[in-house]
């Protein structure tokens, strides 16, 4: 009999053990100490949270005159596209690199080159930003191989935050997996 009771207790522990240990003991709450009809004074919680008032506009004061003068040269440079989840420059994209390097070492030789790595919409986390950076870095290596001075090249990854196409299609996602070539004074 004693054993039966003990094993029942063990079984019960297993059944209920999986339940949360954070069940509120609501029914067991002793109200008596805190109960009143209505006479108890209400404790005022002064200023639950600090007010937010500051707004910063990062566009304020930016001059884009130099960007306009470089716009014509930038439009002659082609973006390099990448395969899904890949960051190596494919053979069919190498002509674009050659063409861009010719412009960079020719008409645009006085400017710094900014390579902007981009990804499709699958994830905005750091890994996706790193994938965009690896794409920019592959394009940088390819540009250096074409004779561009590495000191003239800066890189930035935008992850998925700068798409050229926002449709939910395979063509659109393919367009967004790219490195753009920009010029800086």
């Amino acid at each position, binding site marked *: 009999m004693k054993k039966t009771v*003990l094993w029942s*207790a*063990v079984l019960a*522990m*297993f059944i209920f*053990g*999986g*339940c*949360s240990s*954070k069940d*509120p003991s*609501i029914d067991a*709450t002793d*109200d008596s100490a*805190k*109960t*009143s*009809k*209505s006479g108890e004074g*209400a*404790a*005022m*919680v*002064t200023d*639950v*949270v*600090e*007010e*937010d008032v*500051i*707004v910063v*506009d*990062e*566009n*304020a004061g930016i001059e884009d005159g130099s960007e306009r003068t470089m716009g014509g040269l930038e439009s002659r440079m082609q973006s390099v596209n990448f*395969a899904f*989840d890949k960051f190596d420059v494919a053979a069919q994209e190498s002509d674009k690199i050659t063409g861009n390097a010719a412009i960079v070492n020719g008409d645009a030789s006085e400017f710094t080159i900014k390579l902007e*790595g981009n990804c499709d919409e699958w*994830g*905005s*986390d*750091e*890994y*996706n*930003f*790193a*994938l965009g*950076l*690896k794409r*920019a*870095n592959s394009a940088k290596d390819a540009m250096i191989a074409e004779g561009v001075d590495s000191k003239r090249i*800066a*890189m*930035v*990854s935008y*992850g998925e*935050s*700068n798409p050229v196409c*926002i449709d939910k299609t*395979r063509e659109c996602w393919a367009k967004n997996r790219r490195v753009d070539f920009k010029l800086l004074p």
Partner: protein
Amino acid sequence: MRLILGWLFAAVLLYGADATIEVIKKVDSLPSIAVEDASVSFTDTTNKRFFRLLVSDLNVLTLFNVERKYSNTNYENEKVVRENKVMDYVLRYRLRTDDDSAFIADIKLIRENNVILKKSYRVKRSKMNPFIAHSIAYDINAYFGAAPVDWMKRKLIISRLSAPGESEIVIADYTLSYQHVIIKGGLNVFPKWSDSSRKSFYYTSLSSIRPTLIKIDVRTGKRTKILTSDGMLVCSDVSSDGKKLILTMAPSGQPDVYIYDVASTKYKRLTSYGGIDVNGQFMEDGRIVFVSNRLGYPNIFAKKLGDKSVEQMVYYGQSNSACTAHKEYIVYKARESTHAFSKNTFNLHLISTKTDFIRRLTATGVNEFPRFSKDGDAVIFVKNYKQQSSIGVIRLQQNKNFLFPLKSGKIQSMDW
């Protein structure tokens, strides 16, 4: 026999506290609660909006079966509304303003027509009233002695993509009912609170020639440039005392994990793999957990500071590209499908470094940016599903998920 019983009892306690084990609660066993509106000073829209906020917060507590029907009464009525007589508890609120035009909420928690809790709350501006609702829920939770929900009252910081190449940084409450745009213009991403006081935060500005890490004081707007790196620079985590940062940087085009000392402004490289190492997070045992593709696909690894060896932490999934850590628990994002030309699903999973259990926390859509609350009670994350971007809250012990959608734009990242 006693020895066996002792062991079994210890085993049950151990498993009962393991967050990787799903808990299924019997909903009917929870006490019922109704919310009564007794406001007179505000418009019907404000009153009902506050009603919905309170009902939502009480639901998130998972202590009650919450009645969703709106009811109206006088604040001083000794009896509850007739249809609420069957309720175990009634929460009555009255919204008003004081002489300084501050927004005030008086509340009474009533049980069997007796007031068991009475309190008043105040914010300077009406638009901040969601924090009052969260504070009320927090106090009710504390009254019943449930596990603390400090995270409910905390401010979130979000980077919201508003257009290609443009974002805003927004301070919000966890339900996104309150939103204040603190930085607009340009592309600013990966905001992280600089310490528990939440008086300043770090973010990455991508508007200049190279990514720049900036710290901004939320009260004065003063910005301080911390670092610049070629290619990529992200503040991945801030130590609990705010003295150390884990950064992902790529000064030579190679993304690696670094540790940065705020006082000395010196940094040290922690990983040196030729692929991708990102998303470092502090663990309580002194290790750093991070994402790396050193096995040919993104996965979760850990290493001790100053140690060369790296330990693989997750053995499930072929693409685990984000993580957050609390004590022995790790929540990570795993890609469930690998399609270049169709929809992909990314789900969050919970593991314990002490057991082999894996618990899937989400089921559909793209779920990312998991962040543990400071006490480990909840995980907050970003969910993108069917053109809708939402903040999700997972209460681990209660096995409940809650979603709070963003009306416009897409959430790039967030911290709380």
